[in-house]
């Protein structure tokens, strides 16, 4: 037995005697790390008494890949691709958070053109819809509604198609980079996005028809996994986990970034803090994101897709053969990289899972001295014991699904 034993010890004093003198024992069981309902490599050590969960201890670290350490060895532009892989279901939101942090560190926030902001918002909201579709599909699948899964992934394919159109990559696009975007939009982008936004509302109604007033769904989710508002705030839960508990807090409204103040959208907030409320919050968020995408496409101005500052963004490739400065800037940027001034920043964005923060410390060199990522799923997972202790074993599955964790960002 190791000194740092994680599993709770069984003790006879913990069991209570029944009427005929027998003892009801508690049992400690292990859930994961390989489990279809833990949404990744999450290990839970559950102490149960029959079907009632007495204690749950999450054991994480199975997906720890040392992203923060690796980022210290890369230049700022290279470290961008690491950020895709943390919350791997919404890479563009991670890219956006990182790019905003590096731009703040560099001091070039005013040089980001309106077009860049509109494109970033449109893509971030499309990515939010894609992430919520995975959440809905897997959550419903865990609770038995298996057909919802394929419908959600059918819609997600259309969104991934849009990303492939502009960046060539479906998921880990790294398309939003410090300094703007990696490449300009293609001519087909608008057509594809409009096709998606015209088809999606009907599909959302389909999902509502299948689940929202479904007796079985309501019985599995209403009153289950309740999280009180004061607990949510005290533990640092954010995103739909916090909003489902009747706390009005969305970073896009409070500390707007990337031009979000120009868009008109609502924040859905739940009232009971149970799984059903968090489900409704995310469903309505998908609707609001669609509104934002439509507004972004309607109002998108023309403009450059990257800042004009050659010390940060490489000049267009065709200039290299003609201009010596372009060649030198290109060379310096890709061999060494730009060097932000000494200092540190912490920038928060509203990722689909919650408050995503990037804390970057610069020592004046071309590499981040320290990059820490405040992952929303890390704090959201910390409240899991509060949600499920005292409940039934099957409610653990519902609660994990409703928090919407991604182990990539929990462990980094």
């Amino acid at each position, binding site marked *: 037995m*190791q000194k*740092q034993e*994680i599993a709770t010890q069984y003790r006879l004093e913990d069991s209570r005697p029944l009427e005929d003198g027998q003892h009801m024992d508690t049992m400690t069981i292990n859930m994961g790390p390989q489990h279809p309902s833990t949404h990744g490599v999450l290990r839970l050590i559950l102490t149960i008494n029959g079907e009632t969960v007495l204690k749950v201890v999450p054991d*994480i*670290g199975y997906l*720890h890949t*040392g992203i*923060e*350490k*690796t980022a*210290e*060895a890369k230049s700022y532009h290279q470290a961008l691709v690491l950020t895709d892989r943390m919350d791997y279901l919404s890479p563009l939101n991670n890219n956006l958070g990182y790019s905003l942090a590096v731009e*703040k*560190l560099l*001091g070039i926030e005013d040089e980001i053109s309106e077009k860049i902001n509109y494109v970033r918002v449109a893509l971030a909201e499309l990515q939010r819809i894609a992430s919520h579709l995975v959440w809905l599909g897997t959550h419903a699948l865990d609770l038995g509604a298996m057909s919802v899964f394929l419908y959600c992934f059918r819609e997600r394919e259309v969104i991934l198609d849009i990303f492939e159109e502009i960046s060539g990559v479906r998921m880990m696009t790294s398309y939003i980079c410090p300094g703007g975007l990696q490449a300009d939009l293609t001519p087909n982008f608008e057509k594809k996005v409009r096709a998606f936004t015209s088809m999606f509302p009907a599909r959302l109604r389909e999902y509502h028809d299948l689940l929202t007033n479904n007796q079985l769904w309501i019985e599995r989710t209403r009153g289950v996994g309740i999280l009180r508002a004061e*607990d949510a*705030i*005290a*533990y*640092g*839960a954010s995103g739909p986990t916090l909003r489902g508990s009747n*706390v009005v*807090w969305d970073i896009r409204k*409070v*500390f707007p970034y990337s031009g979000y103040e120009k868009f008109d959208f609502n924040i859905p907030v739940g009232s009971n803090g149970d799984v059903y409320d968090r489900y409704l919050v995310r469903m309505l968020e998908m609707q609001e994101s669609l509104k934002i995408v439509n507004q972004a496409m309607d109002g998108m101005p023309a403009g450059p897709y990257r800042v004009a500052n050659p010390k940060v963004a490489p000049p267009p490739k065709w200039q290299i053969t003609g201009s010596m400065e372009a060649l030198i800037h290109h060379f310096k940027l890709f061999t060494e990289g730009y060097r932000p001034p000494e*200092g*540190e*920043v*912490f920038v*928060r964005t509203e990722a689909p899972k919650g*408050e995503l*923060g990037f*804390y970057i*410390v610069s020592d004046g060199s071309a590499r981040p*001295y*320290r990059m*820490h990522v*405040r992952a929303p799923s*890390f*704090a959201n997972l*910390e409240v899991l014991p509060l949600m499920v202790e005292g409940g039934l074993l099957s409610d653990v599955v519902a609660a994990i699904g409703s928090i919407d964790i991604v182990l990539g960002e929990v*462990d980094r």
Partner: protein
Amino acid sequence: MALTATATVSLVKEKFPQAVVETVAFRDEQTLVLQPESLVGVCIYLQKSLRYNFLSTITAVDWPERVPRFDVVYQLLSLPNQCVLRLKVHVGERGEEHPSVPSVCAVWPGANWYEREVYDLFGITFAGHPDLRRILMPPDWTTHPLRKDYPLTGFDLPEPHWGGQVPYTTDPGVGSQTLRSPEGRELNESRSSLNPNQEPGTPKRE
């Protein structure tokens, strides 16, 4: 009128004049550097009176050439006042293997996992933490990966890889990033049983 970060800084300096080591303002973010002993007192004041009720994250930064070596950084957020603040403490005297900082778990329960992560990756212990053990690394790991003297590519693990590791037998010194012994050989070279004249990848022949 809602509180701002600059107002917070002046209020804290007024109420705890000996606790504040310095204040830094960079890119409109305020940082308060505090003495480690007064950390919990200031945090209670911030949380109760100034309503900084949301602890976003706790992390640390390793400056191996500097004494004190580590910065422990707290990012705070006030939901009612909609403002943010950063707190820092400098810990880690020369030669101190596991510096200690008072824990803020009593002020913000969410600090529990963040302090465990800082302990796991940096080796900074938190006095008063209810359950200080590793969270990301395996429980029997002996070193702290995010320190600057921990190699980027990690250690070579002995076969089979149960999570144990080959510790340095000599002090690697600050800043060394390789896995080589002082003589320049690969640390696990002596464990190779391959005949150097044999084709690599073929089964061992006598």
